[in-house]
């Protein structure tokens, strides 16, 4: 069931043990997550799949320390999140986690560069203005948007906005990148670009966990976890992995041909 294939001697960056999450909506108890145990090692690239209501978003919130499990334990980088205060959790999100959302969630009327700087405003110890600028620029370069640093979100395309969001997630050198339907609002071509970026980052050693309901997007990941009714029903390595860089090259060629014809 558990597919920690490579390097099982390495301490996992994420350890979930019997995690449940129960919401009370009125009189009714909603069991969003009903006992999930999962290990994710450093350098893995995991897709969490499932229909809506399967509990994958709740699981994501727990992984992102935005929510606490009702029962069970979640260890992030060896630390049990249940024992941490609100402030300690904020600091954990700031240092160890990077978030990428379906709707990008950039600050409106704020330049790309300043959006990328945002997490550093809340870092302890304080990051100096100059260092903030430098690191934000480096992160923008990494996603290929250095020339758009002064643009406001509404002056950028969806794919560019998502890349700014990824730069923001990367700027504090996190252990883990959490992406919630990152390509949900993007067209196919831009989706391939974003997945290519994730694959590059993953190749450079970053652990990525991504929620998606699209199988062809999950196909870019190394490991696919499928959830249903709050439980993991399948957890397998992805042997037929799609490689975004190759597909893009093929797509470019096809387009050129189409234009010539």
């Amino acid at each position, binding site marked *: 069931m558990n597919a920690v294939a490579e390097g099982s001697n390495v301490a996992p960056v994420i350890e979930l043990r019997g995690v449940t999450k129960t919401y009370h909506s009125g009189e009714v108890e909603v069991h969003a997550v009903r006992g999930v145990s999962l290990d994710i090692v450093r350098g893995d690239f995991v897709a969490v799949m499932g229909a809506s209501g399967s509990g994958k978003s709740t699981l994501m*919130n727990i992984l*992102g320390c*935005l*929510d606490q499990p009702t029962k069970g334990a979640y260890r992030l980088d060896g630390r049990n999140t249940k024992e941490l205060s*609100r*402030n300690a959790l*904020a*600091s*954990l*999100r*700031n*240092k160890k986690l990077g*978030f990428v*959302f379906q709707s990008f*969630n*950039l*600050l*409106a*009327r*704020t330049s790309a560069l300043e959006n990328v700087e*945002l*997490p550093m*405003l*809340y*870092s*302890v*110890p*304080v990051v100096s203005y100059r260092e903030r600028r430098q690191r934000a620029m480096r992160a923008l370069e990494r996603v290929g948007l250095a020339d758009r640093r002064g643009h406001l979100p509404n002056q950028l395309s969806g794919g560019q906005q998502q890349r700014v969001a990824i730069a*923001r997630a990367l700027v*504090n050198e996190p252990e883990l990148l959490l992406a919630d339907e990152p390509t949900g609002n993007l067209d196919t071509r831009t989706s391939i670009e974003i997945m290519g970026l994730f694959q590059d980052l993953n190749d450079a050693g970053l652990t990525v966990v991504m929620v998606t309901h699209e199988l062809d997007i999950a196909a870019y990941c190394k490991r696919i976890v499928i959830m249903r009714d709050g439980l993991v029903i399948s957890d397998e390595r992805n042997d037929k992995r799609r490689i975004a860089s190759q597909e893009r090259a093929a797509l470019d060629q096809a387009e050129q041909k189409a234009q010539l014809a």
Partner: protein
Amino acid sequence: MNFLMVMRLVLLQSWQTAHVALRALRRNKLRTSLTALGIIIGVASVVAMVAVGNGARARIESQVASLGQNLLNIFAGSTRTGGVFAGLGSASALTLGDAEAIRREVPDVVAISPEVTTSAQAIANGRNWQTSIVGESPDFLKIRDWKLASGSMFSDRDVRTTAKVAVIGPKTATELFGPLDPLGQTVRVKGIPFVITGVLESKGAGLNGQNQDDRLIIPYTTAMKRITGDRYVRSINVQVVSSERMTAAQDQITSLLRQRHRLTADKDNDFNIFNQKEIADTANIVTSVITLLLGSIGSISLLVGGIGIMNIMLVSVTERTREIGIRIAVGAQASAIQLQFLIEAMILSVLGGFVGILIGLGVARLVQALSDFKPIVSLGSILLAFGVSFAIGVFFGFYPAQKAAALDPIDALRYE
């Protein structure tokens, strides 16, 4: 981490948070200025109204002081004819003997002047002028704290000899003599020639609004014998040695006059004594009430302004729910979010306070320019207004900031 490092961290983070807050305010310039307007109006009205109140107080005080120091006015009682009140001094009750007795027997009295007044045509230099003819003693200047612009006051000897000499008010002098020096000139009243020995300094309008500068002052003996023909005086003005002795002197004079007028215990006084201190006290109470009233009107607008800030901050928190969610997600601590909104509210109110003070000062200037009234701006009211607007920022910003900090990041991120 030692204490200094913690302080540095707190300062740096507050600085960064202030930056974030400032940027948020700049993004919404119209809303920011409209919100600050509430505080601006409040602070401006407090500053301007307190200045107007203080100006009114100073003006009344100076007018009361212009009456003279430690003054008692003894008026002959009023006559009533068939229920008609004929006015103070209309009864023929006070005599020169009364004045002499007060001077002799009340040791706290340091200056005394029996007063007779009438109105008559003064003729000089080929011109006519209707003016007040006032009979006084040489103590008059001391009692009323008045000085001569030129020349000298008539003497006690002039009083004894019923000399035909006069001291002229500056207004009367201008009307009769124009640019000429009135000293040594002769002015005729009811056909009697008076030699002018002195000119009074200008004192302007008195408490009753009458111009005090339009009068001709002559020895009371001369006035009684040659002008009015009365045996009685209208009033006796007395200066007491100190303000502490005012009440004692008033009591002594009362019993002395009752005794001289042979009033039995069942009869009312046939005279009235006005204590200048009481007038001043009453005037002070009135002006304090005015200042308080004006100040409270301003305070109410400050309160309304503060509620405006809270309202806008609450709207702002709701509107920026998603932004708050993003900030929390990337690791902002609740205290940083709270501080951001608190600082926004404080910047709004302090900025409004600052502009309000400037406008308040401007209004005070304008009042001064458009009238002869002089508002007095006190540093105290400025500091108070500034302090209050700062406090309003903290007070009315606290709840919205609290609300922002308590948002659940998951809900906040989903908020549309």
